[in-house]
């Protein structure tokens, strides 16, 4: 019985892991462009799911139109957030940035509670819910959607960062913001871009996971934190190592919940987070980096 179970947990772990990976990449993109850990990242995940719901039910849009609509609105909230909270900050010390992004995230969550209430909402799966058997385990079509969409986003990301001018400019900012500014890159615009991209990615993660887990105004907290774990495991990279970090986290969590205790499922992620921060703060795959004073 053990093997089938382990296969089942691994498969479902991979799809939640893909979600963590997307959120984690969102964290990394902003961190690399600005040095900010955006504590509000999880709220965009929540917005993605709930906005899709509103597009479906209030605007009566079909699913294929509701999703882009939700992504665009979430990205717009990302722009507002950067403009209203991050840019005007007079003393952008790390502690002030932590506090302001936390404040922003509480505000967004609170407004979502006003708009959508405290109930959990369901979004219909993208293509039915007929289970598919793989070996001794079964998965839902939505799991495949999650894996496929994550893969596509990672590819788009790669192309953007390595083959477009604006992506290369963004990478330049992450290496050295001043030097990037000196060669004529508009750093502030790149910061805004990073917020747009990561809020859109967060929204996508929230949309594709919603049919599986349902969504509510407060799902962003945990998902955001797990995404951050993924990013930490991946050493805050916006590439493959964060993806691996996310998948690893998803699988470990799913196995831990299934084989040890489901009550401690969330604790597993945070224990991993602490261990990585204590032992290898540069991430599982990164090289140790000495800090300049």
């Amino acid at each position: 019985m053990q093997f089938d179970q382990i296969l089942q947990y691994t498969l479902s772990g991979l799809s939640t892991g893909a979600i963590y990976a997307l959120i984690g990449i969102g964290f990394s993109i902003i961190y690399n462009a600005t040095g900010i850990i955006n504590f509000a990242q999880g709220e965009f995940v929540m917005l993605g799911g709930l906005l899709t719901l509103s597009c479906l039910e209030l605007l009566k849009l079909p699913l294929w139109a509701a999703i882009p609509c939700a992504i665009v609105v979430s990205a717009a909230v990302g722009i507002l957030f950067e403009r209203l909270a991050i840019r005007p900050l007079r003393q952008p010390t790390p502690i002030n940035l932590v506090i302001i992004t936390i404040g922003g995230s509480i505000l967004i969550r609170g407004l979502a509670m006003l708009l959508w209430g405290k109930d959990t909402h369901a979004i219909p799966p993208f293509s039915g819910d007929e289970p598919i058997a793989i070996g001794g385990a079964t998965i839902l079509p939505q799991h495949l959607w999650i894996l496929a969409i994550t893969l596509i986003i990672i590819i788009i990301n790669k192309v953007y960062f390595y083959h477009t001018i604006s992506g290369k400019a963004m990478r330049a900012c992450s290496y050295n913001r001043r030097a990037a500014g000196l060669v004529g890159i508009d750093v502030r615009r790149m910061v805004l871009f990073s917020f747009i991209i990561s809020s859109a990615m967060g929204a996508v993660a929230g949309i594709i996971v919603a049919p599986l887990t349902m969504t509510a105004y407060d799902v962003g907290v945990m998902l955001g934190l797990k995404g951050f774990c993924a990013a930490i495991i991946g050493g805050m990279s916006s590439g493959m190592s964060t993806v691996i970090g996310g998948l690893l986290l998803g699988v470990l969590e799913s196995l831990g919940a299934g084989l040890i205790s489901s009550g401690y499922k969330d604790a597993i992620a945070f224990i991993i987070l602490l261990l990585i921060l204590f032992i290898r703060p540069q991430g599982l795959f990164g090289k140790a980096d000495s800090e300049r004073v």
Partner: protein
Amino acid sequence: MKRDLLLFIAFSLLIMVAPQFFEGGYLMNVLVFVGINTMLAIALNLLLGYAGQISLGHAGFFGLGAYLSGVLTTTYSLNPWVAMPVAAITVGFLAGLIGFPILKLKGHYLAMATLGLGIIIYIVFNETVELTGGPSGLSAIPNLQLAGIIFDSDVKNYYLIWGMALAVMLFSINLANSRVGRALRAVHDSEIAAQVLGVNARLLKVQIFALSAVISSLAGSLYAHTMTFISPTSFGFNFSIELLTMVVIGGLGSIYGSFLGAALLTLLPEFLRGANDYDIIIYGGLLVVMVMFMPGGLVRGIPALFRKVVEKVGTGHA
């Protein structure tokens, strides 16, 4: 120094006569909580405002104090006066132990790590059902007793809690003005510069973290013995954020600021009844507004604002 002492005496007198005005009212009960929250805010402020190290997991230490006191006095029928220091020492020891690896981290990483720690503690409260009662909580925790007086009414609790809170305040003011306080501020401004000047920054950070945890634990024990009932929801992530809000609103690095922040955030929900679910939005808004427009908190922001207005009026007449 003398001025500090006079200010403290004046403040203590004010606190001691306050019940005369609120006697018997529901507000007395709220003022007890202001006292507990003041202790917690000062604890966090010592860490965040003086040493410059953030913690988003302080609700965890508060909860550990409360649960240790609660479990020791109910399941193991220990005397509350014994349970309280036992809890505080245990929490201080744990904080010291975890402090070494956790305080190596800086800024955002420290924030995330302490947040994770707080959530792990919260999950443990929920999951160790045989010990803590799990989500349904722990009840029938005994009140404190001293020389035949049982602290079971709001007025008695007021004097008990505020006696402790004032002691914590006096201790913290002295600490801030001492050599240690100056070393902490040096670490705040630049850890490396502080180390060059001979401050053992790493040890100092761990010590202040443990001290802060001990004060939080004491507040937790007092909370358990005055409420006589505790459940995990009081010690979750939201409460850590609430504490952070108190410290930031009051003013980082100001002991009276912590009192101001604690008082404001404890009293605010009482005046906003009916909006009870939405108070979290107000916290979020307050955090954003304060950091943007009054980074020094109310204790510095209000006088600055006042001076500005006076100047405006002065030049207007001239």
